């Protein structure tokens, strides 16, 4: 048995860490969202003005909706790429499995920023892709929509978050006992029916976990829209960033952050419950 003193000693650092770097900032953020700015100073006066602004000015709702659309697209694309990849690795890769797995993981070691600039280089008007298109005479002038568009944001975020979607799905597929899959075929189910009736249902918790990762992380992302989004690809986190920066309206920025946090927490809560129901 450990003594009380020992227990409090080892639990102190994590508690301090959580308190200082998580709870305190959240409390500050929440408090700020109910304060206001007057003559360039933050006034500690409790009011609902920020939330009223968010509800009445359509710009915020519009950007928030766009962010959610982008996050949903990223989730969808990551699933479309990540699920077949995980399925192939788990069921059909054979001896190539280890090396392929490493290849999926390796991009995670490369800095987010580096990958962002790489996309800029690829998609720009004098970038690699446009160069190739013109070299092949598919286009005469550079194609504009590639960079500084929601398309670019979705592309970059999909690239970044596909491994995060892949990993939980792969884990779920690996967790399916192979005799169960064989039993399905043995009982007369074709490979297609076996996938739809056994493999897919049993991998749903992993799929859901992956989708949640992709959606939540994309929703709060501000680097991708900053690097490749342009004006039409601006997301809600960019608004928050500018409110905390140049605009110096911390209270309004905090109010938006609280809204994003609420959306995220609700989503996590719902998927957590679904995952529990679908796990076996």
């Amino acid at each position, binding site marked *: 048995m450990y003594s009380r003193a020992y227990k409090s000693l080892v639990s102190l650092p994590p508690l301090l860490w959580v308190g200082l770097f998580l709870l305190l900032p959240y409390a500050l953020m929440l408090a700020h969202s109910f304060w206001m700015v007057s003559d360039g100073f933050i006034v500690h006066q409790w009011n609902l003005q920020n939330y009223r602004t968010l509800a009445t000015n359509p710009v915020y709702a519009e950007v928030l909706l766009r962010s959610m659309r982008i996050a949903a697209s990223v989730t969808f694309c990551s699933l479309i790429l990540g699920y077949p990849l995980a399925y192939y690795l788990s069921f059909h890769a054979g001896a190539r499995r280890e090396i392929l797995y490493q290849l999926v993981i390796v991009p995670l070691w490369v800095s987010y920023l580096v990958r962002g600039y790489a996309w800029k280089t690829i998609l720009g008007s004098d970038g690699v892709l446009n160069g190739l298109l013109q070299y092949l005479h598919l286009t005469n002038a550079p194609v504009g929509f590639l960079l500084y568009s929601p398309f670019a944001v979705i592309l970059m975020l999909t690239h970044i978050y596909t491994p995060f979607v892949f990993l939980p799905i792969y884990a779920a597929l690996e967790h399916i006992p192979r005799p169960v899959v064989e039993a399905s075929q043995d*009982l007369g189910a074709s490979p297609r029916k076996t996938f739809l009736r056994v493999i897919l249902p049993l991998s749903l918790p992993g799929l859901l976990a992956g989708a949640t990762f992709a959606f939540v992380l994309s929703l709060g992302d501000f680097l991708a829209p900053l690097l490749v989004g342009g004006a039409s690809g601006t997301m809600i986190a960019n608004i928050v960033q500018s409110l905390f920066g140049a605009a110096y309206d911390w209270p309004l920025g905090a109010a938006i952050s609280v809204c994003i946090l609420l959306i995220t927490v609700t989503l996590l809560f719902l998927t957590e419950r679904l995952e529990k129901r679908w796990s076996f």
Partner: protein
Amino acid sequence: MSPAPAIPPLEEERAAGPLLEVRALAKRFGAHEVLKGISITVAAGEFITLLGESGSGKTTMLRLIAGFEQPSSGEIWMNGERLDTLPPYKRRVNTVFQQYALFPHLNVRDNVAYGLRVTNAPSNEIDARVADALRMVKMESFAGARPATLSGGQQQRVALARALVNRPLLLLLDEPLSALDANLRKEMQSELKSLQREVGITFLFVTHDQDEAMALSDRIALLRSGALEQVASPREIYSHPATAYTAQFIGQTNLLRADIRGGAAICGALRWPTSAPDGAALFSLRPEAIRLADTAADSGASSTANKPAAKARFSATVKQQLYGGASELLEVDCGGQILRVKIPARGPLSGKQDFSFSAEDAVRVSE
């Protein structure tokens, strides 16, 4: 009157000739030869057991028949049709897996209905057939339960019902009882046997347990490192083992390396008549074939003159005695040769005793 079978075998499928025919079936994994050209036929309605140690290839053979592995060479035929070229889901063969392999996301009823649903059985039949199958394995009250909430024995029953509900021509059972404790195992053995009689479906049963094989099977196919050692009924394989390996694997035995000269086999102090030609030979003598020779019947055996030369007598020192309830297992020393003797329980024995056995019980076996 026996009740009508819950799943009657369809008459037109009872074609003449063997149900299953395995021809020179071989399987290699890399350089390792797991099956070395097995040929065997199985009759419809038969309960046949593939018996062998782990690594003998019995599970591989089952997986080849089910379609989970492809043979390296050889053919499998069922009911006059080539089986080994079909994918598993097109074979009218169902399997009871060692770890049951129930679908964890489906309840008992949906597990059993699975095979009917995926093969597009008429939906108005499904409920009745599932209920029948569950009744057959006495699991109807668990229809709504998830597999994870069931005990091993209950999962076993569900796995059986799930495999039988499709009315397969052949049911494969991969050590289905090995995960159960001893008592439940005995109980399931007898249930399995009566179930097979009831449904009339051919059972191909895989086990490493020779007692289980003896108790259940119409025929036993003994596998040894990928080759068939002997295929025979349990009684035949026990009383007339073809090889020393069979004699030792199925039950206990004394292997006697004898020298035959002029119609008599001589092995140390033992001597018995035989019709085998002169030369060296190996004999198997079951422990229970050796009797204590102190009873009146035995001492008078030579005077009955029915088979005057058919008895072999010897005296030996009792080295060890193990009490087994109804019987005693002795280890006796006969001139330096240790023999195992199994006699009906009769109290402690010691010192020199006289024993006898019938010459016909010493069965000649090959190496």
